[in-house]
């Protein structure tokens, strides 16, 4: 069987969706950088970048070019190979997640029957990047930052996993497409608001965003795990952080806000034929943008936690709460069976 015969229309569609998704994700990261600076400026009553291109829109491109042209410094006695691999890991894992996220009806890269597990597995790999970066740098700040990051991401992965498990309870499937379709009538945020809150907080922590950015708390740890990174290697950590913002928003949209469905859409949305695809994508991206905006909004509004507060919140508040939430939902569903 030749390779061409394998390329069925379905497969080509998947590839196209994945390509489009990855392209969107990369661009969204650039846009998010720009948006972050503009929104920050707006919140702080400043102007923000407005010189490069119309309204400063080309600023991210200038940033990337600058980073690429800078000198790549690897600290002496650092582990060169690991030092190089570490920044690639978060970028790769972030890109890999778009494969199973449905952007619209039928618009999904791969409708895996274990899509939810795939998402959790891939996103949890990101912790290796920061830990290895901290270890390979041969610097105290980097090591502590990396360790903090590892402990923090592990701690918040648990409530996140429990919150997603409660979504799986409601959807009755591990397929992301099924999860979205189960919300045609009712978004899960209305049935499972606690799960949403937990997931949202945990997603902030997983992306190491304020108020959980202790990993790179400047006042204590200089740059945290990327203290010893420069040039595009640093740029890749930066890129990954903003890709995680987008992905976190996409996941919140998918798991709790009905993905590409408008609220209660099965009740009132008329059949609009092929325009539906366009509507789906618009709705999905709209919701994603809103949550990406709230990431930025939170960053410039809320101060940073102390590390013991962070761990206490994760272990003694969110985790028990998420477990109890899971049990309550399971029992209610069981009673209503």
């Amino acid at each position, binding site marked *: 069987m030749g390779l061409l015969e394998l390329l069925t229309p379905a497969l080509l569609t998947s590839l196209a969706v994945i390509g489009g998704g990855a392209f969107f994700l990369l661009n969204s990261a650039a846009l998010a950088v720009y948006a972050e600076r503009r929104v920050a400026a707006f919140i702080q009553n400043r102007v923000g970048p407005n010189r490069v291109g119309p309204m400063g829109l080309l600023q991210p491109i200038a940033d990337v070019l600058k980073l690429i042209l800078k000198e790549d410094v690897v600290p002496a006695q650092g582990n060169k190979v690991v030092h190089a691999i570490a920044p690639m890991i978060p970028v790769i894992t972030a*890109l890999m997640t778009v494969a199973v996220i449905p952007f619209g009806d039928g618009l999904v*890269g791969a409708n895996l029957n274990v899509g939810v597990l795939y998402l959790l597995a891939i996103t949890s790999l990101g912790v290796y990047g920061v830990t290895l970066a901290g270890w390979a740098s041969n610097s105290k700040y980097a090591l502590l930052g990396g360790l903090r990051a590892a402990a923090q991401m*592990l701690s918040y*992965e648990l409530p996140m996993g*429990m919150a997603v498990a409660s979504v799986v309870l409601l959807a009755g499937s*591990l397929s992301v497409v099924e999860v979205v379709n189960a919300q045609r009538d009712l978004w899960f945020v209305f049935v499972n608001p606690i799960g949403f809150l937990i997931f949202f907080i945990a997603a902030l922590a997983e992306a190491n965003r304020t108020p959980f950015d202790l990993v790179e708390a400047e006042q204590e740890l200089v740059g945290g795990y990327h203290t010893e990174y420069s040039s595009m*290697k640093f740029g890749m950590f930066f890129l990954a952080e903003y890709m995680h913002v987008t992905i976190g928003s996409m996941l919140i949209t998918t798991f709790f806000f009905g993905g590409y469905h408008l609220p209660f859409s099965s009740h009132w949305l008329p059949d609009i034929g092929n325009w539906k695809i366009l509507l789906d994508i618009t709705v999905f991206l709209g919701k994603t943008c809103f949550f990406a905006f709230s990431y930025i909004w939170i960053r410039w509004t809320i101060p940073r936690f102390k590390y013991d507060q962070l761990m206490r919140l994760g272990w003694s508040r969110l985790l028990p709460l998420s*477990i109890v939430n899971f*049990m309550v939902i399971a029992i209610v569903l069981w009673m209503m*069976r």
Partner: protein
Amino acid sequence: MFELYFPIAVLAVVAVVLALVLMVLSGILGPKRPDKVKLMPYESGMDPYGQARDRYSVSFYLVAVEFIVFDLEVVFLYPWAVRFLDLDAGAFWAMMVFITVLLLGLVYTLKKGTLDWDSSTAAHNRA
């Protein structure tokens, strides 16, 4: 199977290549002017003091151990959560007991201050 996982494989290859390209690009285009001070680990402008890879708090290990326990719990929950409405009462209550036992374990570790990062209260609780 192939139709499902081939796109993911393609995406993985693309992601790796993209990361490599970015990495190599800055390696080629950037200047190379290393010197001894530049290659020193950053320590607020001072000469580095002592070992970088020093001993660190045992709490990090405790977090890792706890994580394994509860992550495994979550892993057990997923297949059950998908099918639990089709299973009998035994399976339902068995899982409830399982979760409760682990919840009690969590209460125990929290009360004991295993995950308390504020060292003054932690020492008090562990005693």
